[in-house]
């Protein structure tokens, strides 16, 4: 702890970021909030919120939205953690190659990436060709929650991996080797040396992935079907089809509240774990 910095320097360091967001984030946010409450049309009313919270359909969609984001975050963590370990230890060209591999999906425009998935997942796609050759029954997973989740894990992987890897970069292999020399089995080395170090990275990555997953609608729209509805897609419909900006804003505020609640819960758990 560098208490010598004092709170004045600290305040000085956060001031620009806080000032910037106060202007260009809080301003628009208040505007959207006012719109969702119908303030631009005269009297304030929570009618839009009542319509959302008092209707089992919207509650169902909200539940599906949160579950999708949670599942994607979990899967990305499981798939991404080993990748981060390997990336953090790789050197030179191997590191460049692993890094490229990681960001490649983000460079392919979503609509053509979807075409790629169609070729992979399609009823006559690559996976089914392999299954057929093995004498196994064909899968019909294109346009389903599964397809959406796989496609999201695919593009969100870099956000998890790089967050974890950046905290592992400061891990000295000498620690692990020392632990190994002292006879600690590999899982104990991991649990006591690697895991604590990367915990903050995993939390950071999970936050980013959760927020990105819960806000995504293009992937849900093109990889899903009529059964796979999420809140941001409802927002999109209200804006593009119904042209109902106040209702869209109210839906957006509900989504905002959910994500903030998840962030808050995470912070509480983290604080309790640290204490």
């Amino acid at each position: 702890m560098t208490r010598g910095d004092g709170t004045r320097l600290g305040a000085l360091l956060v001031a620009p970021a806080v000032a910037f967001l106060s202007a260009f984030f809080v301003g628009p946010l208040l505007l959207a909030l006012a719109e969702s409450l119908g303030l631009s049309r005269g009297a304030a009313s929570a009618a839009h919120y009542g319509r959302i919270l008092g209707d089992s359909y919207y509650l169902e969609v909200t539940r599906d939205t949160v579950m999708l984001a949670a599942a994607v975050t979990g899967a990305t963590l499981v798939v991404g953690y080993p990748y981060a370990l390997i990336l953090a230890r790789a050197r030179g060209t191997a590191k460049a190659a692993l890094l490229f591999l990681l960001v490649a999906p983000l460079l392919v425009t979503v609509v053509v990436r979807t075409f790629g998935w169609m070729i992979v997942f399609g009823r006559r796609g690559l996976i089914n060709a392999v299954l057929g050759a093995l004498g196994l029954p064909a899968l019909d997973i294109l346009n389903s929650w599964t397809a959406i989740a796989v496609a999201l894990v695919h593009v969100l992987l870099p956000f998890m991996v790089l967050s974890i890897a950046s905290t592992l970069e400061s891990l000295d292999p000498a620690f692990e080797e020392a632990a190994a020399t002292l006879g600690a089995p590999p899982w104990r080395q991991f649990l006591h040396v690697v895991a604590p170090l990367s915990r903050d990275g995993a939390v950071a990555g999970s936050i980013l992935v959760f927020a990105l997953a819960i806000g995504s609608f293009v992937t849900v729209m093109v990889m899903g079907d009529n059964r796979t509805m999420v809140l941001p897609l409802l927002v999109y419909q209200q804006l593009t089809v119904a042209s109902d900006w106040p209702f869209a804003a109210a839906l957006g505020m509900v989504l905002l509240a959910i994500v903030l609640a998840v962030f808050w819960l995470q912070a509480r758990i983290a604080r309790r774990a640290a204490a």
Partner: protein
Amino acid sequence: MRVRSPLAIGAVVASALALSVPAAAQERIVVTSSGGIWLESAKQNFAACFKERTGQEPEIQATASNEIMAKLRASPGKPPIHVAVLSEIDAIRAGREGLLDKLDFAKVPNLNDVPEVFRKQWDGFATIQNFGAMIVMVNGDVVKDPPKDWKALIDQVAAGKYGKRVSFPSLTMPWGPMFTWFLTTLYDGSEDMVFQKYKAMLPNMAKYWVSPVEALNMFAAKEIDVLVYWDGRAYAFAGENPWAKAYIPEPGAFQSAAMLAKPKGAPDLAWQYVDCVLSPKAQLGHSQMVKYPIVNSKVVYPDELKRILTPLEKVRQPDFAKIIDRLPAWLDRWNREIR
């Protein structure tokens, strides 16, 4: 301190970018167009005419109706766009909200050659510049004898004749409400009947498509054998892929159109561009490039174009006022029931 130098470079780039932008803006007339071939046609046909007449190059922005509407609403009276190409519904909304100028016949003489039906529903706030229709495309190798009319097609899909290898437009895509309206005309105006049919087809629907790209993706990947799609693009696809066959089921199709309008507050020069878009020469050139019918009655189509353009008597113009009125209810019903 290698970290600092990229930061410094970035900061310089940031200010350079931000400063260079305002200088370039505003002086020129800003017009919109769809992207790709539409943008090229706007350059070659409309902008060329405008330059010939005024000596100026318009700034052509590839953008969609939704975004134009948002921008017009955000800056009423000071539009960042001077000639807008809007969807039919958005054009009606923009007219009602007072965001558009009434078409001025004195400044747009070519309007005299555009039949009134192309602007009547818009109270003279906008005119159709070109139109098309939604028709049916099938994989001819699989579907040898496709049904001749819409109702038969719908019943066969619902009965599973084509398996789960069919894709119709979703109500939630931009022209979905118009397709839904068209279906109501087939079933004596009954919305309930149309939603029943939507529901009945669902088990055999690979997907109700939302983006035109995914629809053609599915068809090209042979994931589906029957697709309801726009005529111009369906004919173009079938032209290159002999296994694909496009046709218009009876009793025709609904008209889907691009609307031309001048936002309120745009300079008078914008009328020149509108007049250019409607001029016979530019209209013919446009039709030849995008393969869609246009509206100036002086234009005579060459034979090769006549063969693929959906004739006006085959298309029905939707009742937009009714669609706007019913839209929120339809959307709600679609989300709850068709799943």
